């Protein structure tokens, strides 16, 4: 019999204070900057200074977020570690490449090279846990995290693993951000203050973060939600989204009216937010709608922040005002649908139930 997948622990390091808090009570919307930086935890509480000194920011955040998730789930080890990242440890990749150029391909030291690979986060978590099980990193743009999540779900369903640590992590790199600015992916300064829901400009406010989850095949006291389904579609036209979502829900014996809340990935780019706007104004007009990128910023694995948020909502049955798109409410929040895409590509649907 196919096993079910439960989120039994969560940990999040983001551009908001999402550790040592209950749920977004300290969240602040920053509309005056085009790039948001993480609120750092005290890394020494989780990683020895000797180990931390060579770790890139993303690695440290991944280790702390995974430690928070493990503690939350009350588990000391897992059968597998699966990570999603869009750009990996981009800061050290930049350092390494800059060293090559600045020193005319001489004097290359190993430290930043060691940290520059995309699977460093998963590897360092495994080293710190001494987890010798399946360890895989997905690098698939804006569906990197969903690729990891889908793999984890299938591993649990097929009885390959009982418990899996799965997460999404990305960090900001100065040079990469400057390229994104040049390419128009990041909002221009004169388009500030940003207003994601009523945007009139292209580009997004960028962010970074690490969100990790302990998935297990049994419901426990710590359970947040069950992951009913995950679907990834690389290309979809605007007019295909609604029917695709209806089909996705139908496969899970649900209709739009059964969805207690929909989490939409509004990013503030007038060109690609039209995908969300169409759904918000039509198919999901009578459904509570939530958004999150005004808090987390946009990055390849920002949707992991959305899963953290949705998990918290199902567990606490509370939706903070700061994430509401509309004023529609439901008596309970047991079924939550997450939809994300970036620049009209890499669409993902994730379905949670209580």
């Amino acid at each position, binding site marked *: 019999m196919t096993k079910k997948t439960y989120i039994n622990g969560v940990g999040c390091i983001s551009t908001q204070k999402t550790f040592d808090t209950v749920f977004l009570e300290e969240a602040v919307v920053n509309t005056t900057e085009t790039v948001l930086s993480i609120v750092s935890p005290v890394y020494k509480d989780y990683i020895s200074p000797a180990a931390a000194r060579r770790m890139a920011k993303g690695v440290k955040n991944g280790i702390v977020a995974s430690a928070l998730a493990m503690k939350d789930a009350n588990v000391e080890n897992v059968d597998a570690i699966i990570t999603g990242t869009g750009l990996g440890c981009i800061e050290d990749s930049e350092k390494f490449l800059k060293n090559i150029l600045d020193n005319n391909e*001489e004097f290359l030291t190993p*430290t930043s090279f060691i940290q520059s690979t995309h699977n460093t986060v998963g590897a360092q978590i495994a080293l710190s846990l001494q987890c010798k099980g399946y360890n895989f990193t997905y690098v698939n743009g804006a569906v990197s995290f969903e690729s990891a999540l889908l793999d984890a779900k299938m591993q649990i369903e097929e009885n390959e693993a009982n418990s899996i640590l799965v997460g999404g992590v990305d960090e900001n790199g100065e040079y990469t951000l400057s390229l994104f600015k040049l390419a128009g992916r990041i909002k221009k300064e004169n388009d500030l203050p940003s207003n994601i829901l009523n945007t009139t400009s292209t580009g997004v406010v960028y962010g970074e973060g690490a969100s990790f989850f302990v998935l297990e095949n049994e419901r426990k006291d710590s359970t947040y939600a069950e992951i009913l389904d995950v679907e990834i579609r690389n290309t979809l036209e605007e007019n295909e989204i609604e029917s695709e979502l209806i089909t996705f829900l139908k496969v899970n014996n649900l209709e739009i009216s059964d969805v207690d809340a929909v989490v939409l990935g509004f990013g503030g780019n007038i060109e690609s937010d039209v995908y969300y706007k169409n759904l918000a104004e039509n198919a999901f007009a009578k459904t509570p709608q939530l958004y999150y990128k005004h808090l987390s910023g946009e990055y390849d694995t920002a949707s992991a922040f959305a899963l953290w948020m949705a998990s918290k909502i199902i567990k606490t049955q509370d939706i903070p005002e700061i994430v509401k798109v509309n004023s529609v409410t439901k008596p309970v929040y047991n079924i939550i649908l997450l939809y994300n895409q970036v620049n009209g590509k890499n669409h993902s649907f994730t379905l949670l139930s209580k």
Partner: protein
Amino acid sequence: MEALKEELKNKIITTLNLEDIAIEDIADNDPLFGDGLGLDSIDALELIVILDKDYGIKLVDPKEGKSIFQSIETMAAYISANRTK
């Protein structure tokens, strides 16, 4: 010589990201590896690059490293005697 020692301590702290260590925490004769600063083999490679890049010294025999990198004192003495820049 004292200025060189101070310079080396600064370089080591910055290059090796020894965030919790200040210049005054490193005595001239403290072992850099093992019980002293606790540096490891990756740090040794970083030190070799510092010698090459900043002082123009290429270590031909890796075995030499053990005596050169014993402490700040031994490093500074070797650099003073062999530097080309």
